[in-house]
């Protein structure tokens, strides 16, 4: 019997129910993009100038179920904060050094702020001239609008390239 619940009805609830809290006025003034539009915008962040960095292979998109296959048991803290989708790619700096770029679309700025605060390492340092960003050895993390971004390096040369990539990404998020 329960299986007869129309999938369209569930789909309607999902589309509307999973959204994060947002001021009513803002919600009315700025209609939310559809999932496909949001995906397109998310993927577009990886195109064009990225501070000299390049995507090595392809950009992976992970929905809620797929997130476990990328970050395993770290997924729930994103899902609980109304995560929408992750775009992740292995990248090479201008010098050819490997980096990983994870851009989480958290659907709303408040959700991005929540996960930024939740994951902030006690010993990570704020970044001068880059609000809402922290860096630790081999890591650069920031939030901008609805996005939460984690950049990871594997050696010192790649680590030095992380701020440039971060600035380029943030510029595209305006």
């Amino acid at each position, binding site marked *: 019997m329960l299986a007869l619940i129309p999938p369209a009805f569930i789909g309607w609830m999902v589309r509307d129910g999973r959204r994060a809290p*947002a001021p*009513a006025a803002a919600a009315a003034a700025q209609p939310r993009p559809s999932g496909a539009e949001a995906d397109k915008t998310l993927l577009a962040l990886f195109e064009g100038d990225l501070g000299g960095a390049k995507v090595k292979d392809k950009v992976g998109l992970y929905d809620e179920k797929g997130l*476990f296959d990328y970050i395993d048991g770290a997924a729930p803290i994103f899902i609980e904060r109304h995560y929408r989708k992750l775009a992740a790619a292995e990248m090479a700096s201008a010098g050819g050094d490997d980096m990983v770029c994870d851009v989480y679309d958290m659907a709303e700025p408040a959700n991005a702020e929540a996960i930024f605060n939740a994951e902030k390492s006690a010993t990570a340092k704020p970044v001068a001239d880059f609000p809402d960003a922290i860096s630790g050895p081999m890591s650069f993390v920031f939030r901008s609008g609805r996005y939460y971004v984690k950049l990871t390096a594997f050696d010192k040369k790649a680590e030095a390239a992380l701020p440039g990539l971060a600035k380029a990404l943030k510029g595209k998020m305006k």
Partner: protein
Amino acid sequence: MSSNGPPGPYDQVPEARVSKSSHTTATAPSDAAGVDRRAALRVGVTAAMAVGSVALGFGLRERSGSKKTRDLPTLKDHRAEKPAGANDMAIVRGPDPAANVRRAVEALGGMGRFVKRGERVVIKPNIGWNRTPEQAANTNPDVVAEVVRLVVAAGASKVWLTDASVNTPEQCFARSGIEKAAKAAGATVIRPDASAFREVNVSGKLLHTGDVLFPFVEADRVINVPIVKQHGLSLASMALKNWYGVLGGQRVKLHQNIHLSIIDLAAMVKPTLTILDATRILTANGPTGGSLADVKQMDTIAAGSDEVALDAFGATLLGLNPNDVGFIVEGMKAGLGTPQWHNLKTVELGG
């Protein structure tokens, strides 16, 4: 440490959020959408959970029924008998990870206690992540290589080394440094491609069958070599949790009741020996990590056959009370060991 409060020991992923599809996601806090929509959402989520539960139950029955689980292989009991007077557990501290492994195994009676000449052995590190050794998301490669050397020296006829990586296996096996180190030490490294899995009986409370990396089906002995790290959902990932890496397929289903899933898999494998790597531990943002700000150098190895005891010890390194870690409590209830590692015959060396 992460500033978000850790989940309680039995907190689970809300089934509606992860188990079916994105169609049953969040019960959003009060928002501009209004009461009617929230009420509809609650009804919808409840209904969808019910649908999902029915579907899940049907799926499990069908899976076990259609495959005639009695015809599927069941993993051997890989445990070795404990010689009279032997130590149960060894904890070694020192700056050289390989030396720590050697001293720990020696304190337990040597690798010959666990591996006999001619036996086939599979070694299971954590190679889940596209991370370097310094980032402490995978087992330290020097630790793994030393385990391989000891097993080879004990006369094993075959030494497999494998893990079902979470990130792309090629990246994980290379970036971790484990593939290169293990091959140099004499192991046959099995990457988890589709042909590497065999369906077996899990016969657990939650997991009935599963696709397992073939060395675990064929091996006479199994050696677990996990790293100690914080884990966002289960609080910690150490010995018992490391068995997630024997399974193929989507991982989301394993997180519906993470503690019992962990125990189902641990009860299935019954390893011969566990060598817990706490050379570097990941103290926050696990299991993935990435920032060295979350890594702590501990220069410690613990070894033994009681995974619950080893995990209880490992939990203390993360600042956790073992009694707060659900899978440790469940492991004890399931008879897999004791969290009272102080009460075992334990030797501590170095440091």
